[in-house]
């Protein structure tokens, strides 16, 4: 058997990786500081407040990370705008690009195929984005919009209430709090499992930090994308023999595992608190 040199393709650009790093750092901080307030009656929440210097510090961190969130939200919009320009497609054509991030009929088919695969059927031939990855992206998009708007309402209640009745502050609290619970719960369980903790990736898929995967992996995990890249001749241009540098891989593993375990611990604490009180808020 002849040994081939391992070849790599870039899956995430530097800017995309940077955005994900911002998402991780801000989201984790927002979740920890926000949940400490939401579950203030819990010992762990009080410990967080005490060790960080009080709820005022938590509030300041929370607002700072909110600004970071708005920043990466608009950065993503700019990137999408650029991508649209490069693609030369109409706006609707870009948004509903079959290989784009918008869910479509094919995703539904793949989902049915995936469920069949769970029970022994053939594995669907995934493209650049699987349906659960599309959901992750849309969910963050939706989440930032909803949590962000309600959060701004709570940040500037006096100003917002000039245009809306005061009880909207109560409504904003419910929406902000529950949507955050949804986001944290989803990221720290479903996203973590689907992306990192599933048996074939356990304990971590470092691609979002190191950027590239091997061509073998691409062929195995995303056969449709591989086929498309081969057919269009783009794969040859993309392929590189340069493996991700060792220190980056090491950093990615340490940082990634830290985040995954922190999120997991937080979600356990939240679930325990909710079982105890059975009344989120």
């Amino acid at each position, binding site marked *: 058997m002849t040994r081939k040199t391992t070849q790599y393709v870039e899956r995430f650009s530097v800017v995309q990786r940077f955005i994900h790093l911002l998402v991780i750092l801000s989201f984790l901080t927002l979740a920890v500081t926000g949940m*400490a307030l939401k579950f203030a009656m819990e010992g762990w929440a009080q410990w967080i407040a*005490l060790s960080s210097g*009080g709820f005022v510090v938590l509030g300041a961190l929370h607002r700072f990370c909110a600004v970071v969130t708005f920043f990466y939200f608009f950065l993503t919009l700019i990137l999408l705008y650029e991508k649209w320009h490069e693609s030369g497609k109409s706006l609707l054509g870009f948004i509903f690009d079959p290989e784009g991030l918008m869910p479509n009929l094919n995703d539904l088919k793949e989902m049915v195929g995936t469920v069949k695969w769970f029970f022994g059927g053939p594995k669907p031939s995934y493209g650049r984005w699987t349906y659960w990855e599309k959901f992750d992206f849309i969910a963050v998009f939706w989440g930032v919009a909803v949590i962000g708007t309600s959060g701004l309402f709570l940040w500037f209640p006096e100003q917002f209430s000039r245009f809306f009745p005061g009880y909207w502050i109560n409504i904003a609290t419910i929406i902000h709090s529950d949507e955050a619970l949804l986001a944290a719960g989803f990221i720290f369980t479903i996203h973590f499992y689907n992306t990192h903790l599933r048996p074939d990736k356990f304990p971590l898929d470092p691609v979002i930090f190191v950027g590239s995967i091997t061509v073998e992996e691409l062929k195995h995990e995303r056969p449709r994308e591989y086929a498309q890249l081969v057919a269009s001749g783009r794969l040859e241009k993309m392929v590189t023999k340069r493996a991700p540098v060792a220190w980056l891989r090491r950093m990615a593993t340490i940082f990634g595992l830290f985040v995954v375990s922190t999120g997991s611990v937080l979600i356990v604490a939240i679930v325990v608190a909710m079982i105890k009180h059975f009344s989120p808020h």
Partner: protein
Amino acid sequence: MNAFKNLPASKSSTPTCRDLSSLAATQSRNRDAVGKPVWRPRACSVADMKYLPWLLLVLCLLCPGQVAALTNDDCLGCHGDPELSVTRQGKTISLFVDEEVYKHTVHAENGCVSCHVEAEVDGDEHPSRLASVKCYECHEEADAVYQQSAHGAGALLECGSFVPVCKDCHSTHAIFPSGDKRSTTYPLNLPSTCSKCHRQGAKASEKCHIAENNMPDNYVMSIHGKGLYEDGLVVTAVCTSCHRHHDIQRASVATSSVNRENVLETCNQCHVGIVAKFRKSVHSPLVTKTDKRLPVCVDCHSSHTISRVSQKDFRLTIGEQCGNCHERHTETYFETYHGRASMLWGGEKTAKCSDCHGSHDIMPASDPSSKINSANIVETCAKCHPNSNPSFATYLPHATHGARDKEKYPYLYYTFMAMTGLLVGTFSFFGIHTLMWIPRGIIERLNSMARKRKHRGAGERRE
């Protein structure tokens, strides 16, 4: 303490006789060659004063049986010795009386034997153990009050023989007016006088079942205690200011100064302005006629642990204090931002009940003077939210989304239900999806491991 300031004259005629005999007796007679006092029990037998027999005869006729009265100097002949002591039941008890102290006390003019009557005997020595001093013989009024107090009859009933008597509070020979810094009842000394018995492990808690709950320490830490000890503020409340002294009673006794019914009046001794405000508030029985228990000062401020209201500890307990009666309102408060944040470190900064509702001047929202009346609410919110406006002030600080308040706040209830639906839906879908994935993932992993092993095994065979 008036009883001590205007000490009534001794009712016995002894002092007169004794004073006269003291005049007759010279210092030298009671001192030996080196000036040391000697035991001379019969001071009135003045054999060396030949020029006064007639006077003595008259005196002795005037004071039958008292001729042999002892002078204080006679007593101090022995009791002036700092070493003088007696051992009783294994305990060494000093019998020393410090003349330097005694001569400045309220009893300085009284002779030893006016209290220790049994010491006046004809023999060389008085009985080795004298009966307890009967203070009541002079201090009749104080005694009558004391007998009816928790320390008198009350203690006798509940604590057996462990009854505090005069000397336990006033000391024995070092009795000064309560305004005197040396007095055991001087404000700066009083708390330690009382806490001799009133602290955990001491008589009051051991023998009389009074739960002291760290009382002395709490008092020292309290605003009254700090005033006293940190600033030397002697007009601050000390034990007797609230509990009174000779007429001290348990709080359960209707006439007690610390009984619920009388607390307001007791605090009113100093806090006149606050009590006047309180009497006009919804918490006053003068305003609210109800069968329910209305709060008095100690319900919110506590007693021995009372602290400055601006202090963190106090602010953090307000919610719970009010919650003792206003349970539902406290519950809902703790569900809002104000309440949640107040549970965290630094939480004293967020709005507490009294910040919106007021404290001593608290009134129902319907009253025009209420802080949460629509006429005043914007201003009340503006204390913390400078940009407060009428719309902002319609925020519902006690609203919940619970089913219990469905009728009251339907929009909150349905918002919450919609959000819950979204959460339950999303988590159910992806939860099931993930649960189905796990076994498949494990199978695939095992398969690929087996493939690799086989591959490696084949490679080894080929080699």
